């Protein structure tokens, strides 16, 4: 499909790359220069008005920022790195994006094609390394292949189940000359991103739902990726189906929706896990039955008929056997099922969730959110921050206890408000992802919760924040421990705290050195004021809250266990 940007003059491969990115609507990229990508950075120098480049401090940061950008903006995130160590530093982010279905195009420089395979300076087998962690990885050795490859890359990254693509461009392909003509890719014969809708499947799903007395829905990120929040709501409301969300599916529906029963999985709400094993029809919508959601598959929802909506055929029957599969984009399939389902009321069934929530509130939530004495609790901070943003902020998290507190207690009113590393569980994700999220959604408040461990894995990105005046609110929940590992040591390793205590620096001083305003809170009565100060401050802000040293995230389903065997802590039983 021809775009207008066609030229008969010869341009360099680097210019072709920049024009291709512009043709794909790219306005922001995250990157770090180096020898083998210098020609591209040189071409970028002439296009600063069209493409904004954010210079990160480490390539891992570039990829996580591109992920945050993609997740907040619905666009494809782009990262630009050099060969060898530049590319290998990007690997963690690329793997993270594959696990969480995040559309990315990662462009790496590569040594001149004549040197390929010779162990040249800063050469790494980027294609060999990235093939298992991408949807597509391609090495470009000739300038005339750049437009073609970029077009394919964006199509593959953004279509169907999204994911990361790597383009590895030899230096001589960047400097060589070519004609330029850009054609958007809209079809590849070997790749069917969205399976055709099968009406028999739609009817079978609707039949099962119409017969259900105790239906329960599991909402995953597929809804967000398909921008199908309205379609989901219409479906759930018409058939009156209560639902739980995976952590990546959390903001697809408002937190306070009457059918919303909370979060699924290891640290999910009690009711959603118990009811998964009581429902008669389980409706999975754009989720992949991750082991952190299902626990032991042999005892998972065995009583239920399972309907699985997914865009990726390979997910059907991968972990949980589906009685009815509904292949396709949920944006299309959900309305078709909604049309066939009869309006229903499952009042009694829905009310049966309530006592379980009340128990959870009494045993866990009240003490986590509203303690009146003792050390500050993580959940308490998360709840106060969410309320202070009127539940309208984007919540980014790093990985660990604070992440589970963020997913459990932050509240959402808008879609695309939960940005966290779900599948890979990448410590160090939070800070750079928040940078990307702010560029992706500049009008929204971006709050990032980090722990003292993960913060220090990508703390160098404070430099990026300083240089670009990026207005993100960093809430550091500091317990001077690798808290989640410590929690497991307490529960499963006989309280042997091997290498989980951290001697930490003065974080506020570090922020100060970067010109970022910071404040440390150790007392409960300072908390509200500090949060208000953070949110009203123009620009980045670090709020360090010293929290309970040995806090625990409950409820907890031990890894690989039956999801109804839930540890509540403090001797409580369901």
């Amino acid at each position, binding site marked *: *499909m021809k775009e207008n940007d066609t030229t008969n003059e010869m341009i360099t491969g680097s210019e072709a790359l920049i024009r291709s990115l512009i043709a794909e609507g790219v306005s922001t990229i995250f990157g770090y220069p180096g020898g083998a990508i210098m020609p591209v950075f040189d071409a970028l120098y002439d296009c600063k008005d069209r493409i904004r480049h954010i210079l990160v401090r480490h390539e891992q940061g570039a990829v996580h920022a591109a992920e945050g950008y993609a997740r907040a903006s619905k666009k494809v995130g782009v990262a630009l790195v050099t060969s060898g160590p530049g590319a290998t530093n990007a690997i963690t982010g690329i793997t993270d994006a594959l696990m969480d279905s995040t559309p990315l195009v990662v462009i790496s420089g590569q040594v001149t094609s004549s040197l390929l395979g010779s162990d040249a300076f800063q050469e790494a087998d980027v*294609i*060999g390394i990235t*093939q*298992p962690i991408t*949807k*597509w*990885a391609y*090495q470009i050795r000739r300038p005339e292949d750049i437009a073609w490859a970029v077009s394919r890359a964006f199509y*593959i990254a953004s279509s169907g189940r999204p994911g990361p693509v790597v383009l590895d461009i030899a230096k001589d392909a960047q400097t060589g000359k070519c004609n330029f003509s850009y054609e958007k890719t*809209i*079809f*590849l*014969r*070997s*790749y*069917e991103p969205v399976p055709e809708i099968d009406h028999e499947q739609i009817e079978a799903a609707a039949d099962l739902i119409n017969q259900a007395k105790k239906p329960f829905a599991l909402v995953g990120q597929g809804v967000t990726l398909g921008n199908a929040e309205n379609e989901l709501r219409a479906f759930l409301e018409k058939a009156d189906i209560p639902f739980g969300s995976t952590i990546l599916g959390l903001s697809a529906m408002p937190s306070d929706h009457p059918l919303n029963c909370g979060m699924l999985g290891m640290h999910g709400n009690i009711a959603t896990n118990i009811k998964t094993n009581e429902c008669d029809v389980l409706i999975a919508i754009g989720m992949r039955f991750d082991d952190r959601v299902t626990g032991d598959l042999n005892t998972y929802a065995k009583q239920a008929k399972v309907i699985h909506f997914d865009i*990726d*055929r*390979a997910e059907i*029957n*991968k972990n949980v056997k589906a009685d009815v599969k509904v292949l396709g984009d949920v944006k299309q399939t959900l309305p078709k099922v909604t049309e066939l389902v009869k309006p229903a009321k499952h009042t009694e069934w829905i009310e049966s969730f309530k006592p379980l929530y009340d128990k959870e509130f009494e045993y866990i939530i009240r003490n986590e959110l509203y303690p009146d004495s003792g050390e500050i609790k993580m959940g308490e901070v998360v709840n106060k921050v969410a309320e202070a943003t009127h539940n309208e902020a984007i919540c980014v998290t790093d990985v660990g206890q604070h992440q589970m507190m963020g997913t459990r207690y932050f509240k959402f009113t808008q879609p695309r408000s939960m940005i966290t590393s779900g599948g890979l569980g990448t410590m160090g994700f939070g800070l750079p992802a928040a940078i990307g999220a702010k560029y992706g959604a500049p009008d929204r408040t971006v709050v990032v919760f980090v722990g003292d461990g993960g913060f220090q894995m990508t703390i160098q990105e404070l430099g990026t924040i300083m240089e670009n005046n990026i207005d993100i609110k960093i809430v550091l929940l500091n317990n001077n421990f690798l808290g989640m590992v410590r929690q497991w040591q307490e529960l499963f390793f006989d309280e042997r705290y091997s290498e989980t205590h951290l001697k930490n620096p003065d974080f506020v001083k570090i922020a100060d050195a970067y010109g970022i305003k910071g404040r440390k809170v150790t007392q409960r009565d300072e908390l509200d004021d500090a949060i208000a100060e953070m949110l009203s401050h123009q620009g980045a802000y670090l709020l360090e809250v010293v929290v309970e040293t040995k806090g625990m995230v409950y409820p907890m389903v031990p890894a690989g266990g039956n999801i109804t065997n839930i540890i509540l802590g403090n001797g409580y039983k369901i």
Partner: protein
Amino acid sequence: MENKTLYTITIFSENAVGVLNQITTIFTRRQVNIETLSVSPSAIPGIHKFTITALSETEESIKKLVNQIDKQVDILKAFYNTNDELVHQELALYKLSTEKVLEHGSIEYLVRKYNIRVLEISKDCIVFLKAGHYVETQALFEELAEKIGVLQFVRSGRIAITKSPVERLSDMLAKRSEAEERIKESYNKTNE
């Protein structure tokens, strides 16, 4: 070994660099050993055909593995069969010392029994070719090794075709080109 079934996985791919790596990493991750592998251009220009055999205790694990392969962007189609659904063949070459063969005396009965083709006779060596199933090429190897001695032996990966009337790829390609026209038409309409 006894409770494992041999599955034959057939894969059609675009002729792109690195497809084999994409396929083998999926076997590696799922801890499935490749028993045999054969790759060649297919009947359709530009499309390569891989035939891979692997042992598995459950059909389920092969099904999941094939789904993951089929999902790769450069893979057109992947499917699996058991032996009863296939006509399959392997080739084997055997190099023997001419002197030892002559010492042995007549080999007519071997040639007839195994339907051997003789590819080369020189004063140093004789090369036999045998096509057949694994058990057949293996039986010949064992008999030659015992009676004459084998200098070199090599066996190819399995090649196979399904017993069903058409190659499933042609149907799929026809459907895909219909889809292509549909997609391009609707794209042009929305961009007019």
